[in-house]
């Protein structure tokens, strides 16, 4: 028993001797630290004397970027410009914001503003997806602050964004409504192919003006084709790239002092104070010589390609007005239609709520040229053409053009077919 008591007192001695004091890692409570952080961000936001420039990269749009100017005040109000369109870039709009402790300290834009235009689930507002918009955000977690920059991550779609303190000069430019949106005329080039010439190097551009994205294609020193995609946003005197474009030789941060010459079909500007330009071309910089065959085979394997509005020619969408044809639904191209040796360009109509392949011209097997063109030899007309068949005839004559077409693969399900004659007529095929 005595032995037991000794053991017992030993046990008691060991366990009661331990230090019960917790040494907290932080010297303040979580609430105190949270309040401190929110107050710090609040002070930063309202304390910037010339407001903030904001960049938002919508999560659903690879490479896309939109720019904003924001000025926060101490009464939960924020004034904004956005480069979304001409109106939002010159109309200052006030809405509401607040800082809130969610899972992380967060910055919420809690009534509708230009920022919400990108998030609106009504695709009619922003050209995005119905029910989703551009997958952008208006509630942001405050990730970090470093120097003049606050880094943000969207809470819903995880879009990245950052705020940079504006300089006095930048604030003045915004407030004096100085803007240069001449770059929007990029859609008014008559030719499909456009090249940017900087310091003797040519870059072929593909521009998505709605998503604020530019694709560059160029030939490197070894003669190989290279491609890159960057986002762009409007600045007071032109556009800037985010991130800057670089091919190792040239680094281009943006285009300044842009002017557009519609007659001459030339967009002029400066790049780092040196003059440069974008001009139209009839031919691609690098011809994808295998594309015609790839397009034709793919069309055959899935029966047909679809185009909703037919040819774009000389700056006009649906140049032959095929959408005015009676009961017109869409245009299709069927390689080896129904197992025959003919390719048929079929106009599909709706009859009694049913899609009917109604009529269209037939072509003999296409010719694939060594330099990467496809030529469609016209054979005969099939089905009964509707009264007023000019749209069908014009489309047929265009497709049968002797110079043929280049094919540009836009993505897995879309090819653009561009007239090799002058590059001013093209049609988009999708599935």
């Amino acid at each position, binding site marked *: 028993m005595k032995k*037991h008591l000794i*053991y*017992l007192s030993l*046990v*008691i001695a060991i*366990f*009661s001797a331990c230090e*019960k004091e*917790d040494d907290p890692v932080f010297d*303040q*409570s*979580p*609430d*105190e630290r*949270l*309040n401190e952080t*929110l107050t710090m961000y609040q002070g930063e936001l309202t304390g910037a004397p010339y407001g903030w420039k904001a960049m938002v990269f919508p999560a659903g749009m690879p490479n896309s970027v939109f720019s904003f100017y924001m000025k926060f005040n*101490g*009464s*939960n*109000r924020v004034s904004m410009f956005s480069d979304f369109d001409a109106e939002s870039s010159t109309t200052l709009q006030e*809405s*509401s914001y*607040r800082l*809130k*402790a969610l899972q992380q300290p967060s910055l*919420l*834009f*809690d*009534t*509708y503003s230009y920022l*919400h235009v990108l*998030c*609106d*689930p*009504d695709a009619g507002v922003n050209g995005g997806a*119905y*029910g*989703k*918009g551009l*997958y952008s955000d*208006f*509630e942001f977690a405050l990730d970090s602050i470093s120097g003049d920059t606050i880094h943000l991550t969207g*809470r*819903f779609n995880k879009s990245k964004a950052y705020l940079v303190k504006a300089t006095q000069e930048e604030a003045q430019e915004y407030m004096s409504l100085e803007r240069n949106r001449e770059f929007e005329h990029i859609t008014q080039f008559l030719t499909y192919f456009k090249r940017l010439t900087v310091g003797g190097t040519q870059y072929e551009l593909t521009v998505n003006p709605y998503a604020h994205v530019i694709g560059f294609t160029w030939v490197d020193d070894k003669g190989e084709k290279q491609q890159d995609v960057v986002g762009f946003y409007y600045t007071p005197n032109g556009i800037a790239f985010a991130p800057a474009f670089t091919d190792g030789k040239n680094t281009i941060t943006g285009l300044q002092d842009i002017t557009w010459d519609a007659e001459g079909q030339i967009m002029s500007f400066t790049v780092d104070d040196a003059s440069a330009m974008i001009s139209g071309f009839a031919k691609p910089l690098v011809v994808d010589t295998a594309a015609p065959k790839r397009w034709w085979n793919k069309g055959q394997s899935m029966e047909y390609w679809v185009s909703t509005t037919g040819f774009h020619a000389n700056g006009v969408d649906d140049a032959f007005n095929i959408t005015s044809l009676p009961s017109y639904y869409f245009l299709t191209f069927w390689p080896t239609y129904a197992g025959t040796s003919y390719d048929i360009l079929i106009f599909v109509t709706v009859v009694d709520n049913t899609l009917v392949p109604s009529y269209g011209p037939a072509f003999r097997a296409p010719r694939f040229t060594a330099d990467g063109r496809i030529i469609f030899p016209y054979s005969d007309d099939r089905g009964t053409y509707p009264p007023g068949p000019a749209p069908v005839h014009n489309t047929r004559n265009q497709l049968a053009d002797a110079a043929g077409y280049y094919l540009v693969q836009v993505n897995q399900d879309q090819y653009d077919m561009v007239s090799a004659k002058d590059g001013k007529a093209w049609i988009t095929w999708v599935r």
Partner: protein
Amino acid sequence: MKRFLQILFYCCSLFLLASCSEDDDLGSIEDIPGLGGDTWVEGPLDKWLYDTLTKPYNIAVKYKWDQFEFELNKTLVPPKEDKVIPVMSAIKKVWIDNYIDEAGLTFFKKYSPKFFILSGSASWNENGTITLGTAEGGRKVVLYLLNDFRTKDMPGYEPADSANVKQMFHVIEHEFGHILHQTVMYPQEFKEISTGYYTGNWNNISDLEARQDGFVTAYAMSAYDEDFVEMISMMLVEGKEGFDRIVNSIPPGSSINGMSRADAQARLRQKEAMVVEYFKSVWDIDFYSLQTKTRNTIEQLLY
């Protein structure tokens, strides 16, 4: 065995000692961020809502964004600030003022939903449809698509906008109807009028097809209760004339389910009579008078 008891003894004493209490300092608990709800510097809009709806009727309106009031997986945007007053004052004119006029202030205060949540966009569903309003538990009403709200005295008004505005009133009258019948149930006979025609497949049925089966809208086919409140809502928003037009629009011949035109019309009229009788006997409200007033207010806003 003795050995085992010894071990048990040591273990017990060990637990006793190790489980002794520790004093944890909770730190400062006076200032927990966000405790007591969101706060912001109040502006004229907040004051208008307080004076117009909160003070007289105890109705709160949340127009600032709070994702947790909505379905968490939906892409939605907050309302434009300049839409809030037009929407809420239209609701006051069409719904609040007319009910108070017919049934009295006490009735309205007692039964009205107390919490309005506003969304700027519609709520898009997986099947391509959009939701324009929802309600929970007779207390909370969520209104969508405020940013497209336009009445005739607002710039850019087009006749097509009236559908959107009427839909908003439709939602409120519908939800308020639910509160009424959940408080005092309508007579059992109402459920028997269309027994056998209710279906979960209502969303694939057009309003016209539903009317051929004796329902005022397709949604009314989903359940007895919905049928009852859709009747209330449609009759109030469309007015007597509008409702008559709906009844008369049923084409001759029979529906897919074999119901004749006369039969469908008779059923709609029977439902109408029961709604009117329910309002009279349960709430002492002259339904036709309420209907006339409600429709007049809507017409003033839209036409």
